[in-house]
């Protein structure tokens, strides 16, 4: 894509050490009485090497505490690396927080100018996009009110609206854009796509692995401060999912079997049928397994298991033979397992799918914990609803 251009960001053998004080001396008195020995070294980053090409979108993933944000802060110049160098070309804006510098006593308008200044917009530039910002936030009627009268949702919208109107060559985005409702997030992704079309370099730190696959050109995964994987988003995300499993078994094989019959596709279909739909606790949803027979198989048994993403403990399974189904010989078939009301806690769940022989148990094809779905809690009621209240008075 940009093989001729110099990379927008070069990270060369960057390490970052934090002194973690058990009891941090924060006054002169304490400093005199405390030896430095109490500080424990913590390496948030170790020997990170990265190149991010100009105009590309780079996803940075990893579990909490893996060093993603630290790396982002080093690139932004907020933190200084303990060793190594970072070379960065072009104007940079870092969105680590929405509404940086917002002050309660100022009006929405004044806060826009203040926040925009921190994001590198000049007063004139801000004036140029001011109406756009206000319209984007949908706050035309309130922009001259002090923000202390805003709801938290309005504040987030305003901060977001300023953030997406920045004009840098390189944009660093931390989890911040993952706020707000779904419509808002869609708006945000739209905006990121616009940034991409404008040829800006984007570094995205996120927990939303599907977003990384959707919009990133390349991705890297950090694990305990080390660069664990780097490459195409698909591969890095898959690696991330394996690591999330806590796989320590060196013999772990995600995929095995002799492939007389093959798993062609697996879809986890939420109740509303759309691929982006949510699965709430108690929802009925479907796991659809498309099976192809490469050679005639008479005794095919299709099964799946759902495992708790945190504990790896199997919580649910089913197989066609147990349901009394004989699939027979076929070219291609779709088996739909309908889960009637998923009873478990919100969280992430893995799906293992297998094709085997009913008689011998021989494995034709197994994909172990290849698929992931997330169960969310039913949304809390935020709007006022009519609740009938009975009133009784008793004589005492």
């Amino acid at each position: 894509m940009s093989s001729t251009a110099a990379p927008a960001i070069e990270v060369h053998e960057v390490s970052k050490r934090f002194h973690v004080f058990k009891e941090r001396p924060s006054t002169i008195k304490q400093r005199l009485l405390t030896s430095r020995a109490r500080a424990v070294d913590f390496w948030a980053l170790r020997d990170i090497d990265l190149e991010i090409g100009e105009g590309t979108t780079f996803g940075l993933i990893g579990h909490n505490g893996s060093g993603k944000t630290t790396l982002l802060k080093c690139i932004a110049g907020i933190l200084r690396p303990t060793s190594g160098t970072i070379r960065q070309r072009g104007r940079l804006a870092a969105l680590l927080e929405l509404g940086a510098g917002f002050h309660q006593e100022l009006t929405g308008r004044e806060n826009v100018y203040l926040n925009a200044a921190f994001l590198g917009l000049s007063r004139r530039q801000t004036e140029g996009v001011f109406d756009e910002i206000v319209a984007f936030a949908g706050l035309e009627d309130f922009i001259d009110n002090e923000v202390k009268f805003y709801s938290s949702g309005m504040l987030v919208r305003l901060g977001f609206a300023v953030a997406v109107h920045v004009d840098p060559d390189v944009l660093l985005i931390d989890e911040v854009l993952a706020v707000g409702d779904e419509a808002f997030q869609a708006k945000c992704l739209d905006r990121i796509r616009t940034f991409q079309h404008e040829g800006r370099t984007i570094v995205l730190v996120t927990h939303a692995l599907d977003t990384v696959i959707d919009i990133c050109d390349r991705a890297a995964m950090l694990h305990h401060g080390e660069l664990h994987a780097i490459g195409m988003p698909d591969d890095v995300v898959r690696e991330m999912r394996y690591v999330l499993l806590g796989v320590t078994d060196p013999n772990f094989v995600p995929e095995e079997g002799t492939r007389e019959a093959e798993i062609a596709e697996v879809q986890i279909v939420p109740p509303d049928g759309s691929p982006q739909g949510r699965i709430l606790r108690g929802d009925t949803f479907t796991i659809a397994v498309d099976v192809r027979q490469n050679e005639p198989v008479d005794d095919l048994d299709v099964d799946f298991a759902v495992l708790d993403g945190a504990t790896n403990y199997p919580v649910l399974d089913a197989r066609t033979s147990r349901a009394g189904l004989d699939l027979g010989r076929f070219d291609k078939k779709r088996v739909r397992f309908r889960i009637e009301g998923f009873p478990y806690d919100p969280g992430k769940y893995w799906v293992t799918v297998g094709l085997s022989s009913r008689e011998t148990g021989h494995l034709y094809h197994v994909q172990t914990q290849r698929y992931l779905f997330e169960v969310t809690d039913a949304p809390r009621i935020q709007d006022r609803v009519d609740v009938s209240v009975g009133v009784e008075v008793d004589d005492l």
Partner: protein
Amino acid sequence: MAATTQTVERTSESPHLRVGERLRVLVAHREILANLVRKELKVKYVASVLGAVWSLLNPLVYLAVFTFVTRVLGNGLPDYPVYLLSGLLAWNLFNASTIGGSRSVIDNANLVKKVAFPREILPLAAIGVALVDYGLQLLVLLVFIVATVGLHVPDLVLLPLAFVALLVFTVALTLWVAAVNVRYRDVGHLLNIGMLVWFWVTPIVYASGLVQQHLGDRTILKVLYFCNPLTAVVEGMHRALYVVETPAGGTSATWVMPLGSLALILLAVLVASMIFLRFTWGSFFARSGDFAEEL
């Protein structure tokens, strides 16, 4: 877009201050400074009906009270309100800047941890706020002086010189306390006590002429007295704004010395302050890379 892209390199080296380069960076970020000062002023006065009038009221009340008190109690120093305020306003600028500046980085911890911008802007904003107050109050004082006794033109040249010397020294000290306070929080308390002592060491409320008389011909002590940069600045302000003919045989309110000598002393303070500023700025700049970690 690509034509003028500059490359930034970040290393583990604590950065070395190059004044010209850093000044350009600060100028490029002046919008943040302007916005922060505007914000502070707004927040300071927003909930009050009179707004910035409070800032003007302060010297007016001083003038009224001391005019009244000196009329009733008879003569201490002639035109004492003018003497007091010409020094006190300068002191207030210095005091508000250093105290405000010492807290500036800590109070904006969230910004420092989440946004990359030249950290000098935070203490500079505290100074900016104090400067606006100073400007308004000086205006009140000047109007009062013109209305009552009149300005003394040749001596007035000391005003800009004293002001610039004060400003450079204030910036230098403020940068230093702001940086040190991030690491050791009791610097703030120490500063409060230090400022109290400093206030009385400086001839603001009392007549420097009396000090001169007391010290007699002990030159070393006199030199020592003027080693306090605030003494030189306040003397400059007195000389520029407070004009009273000393009665024959009486004690002068201000230090008796030729105008040129005082100008030279102020010039020396200015030069020394600039050297001090280079040092404290460098130290602030070197430390500022670790602010996000320390907070």
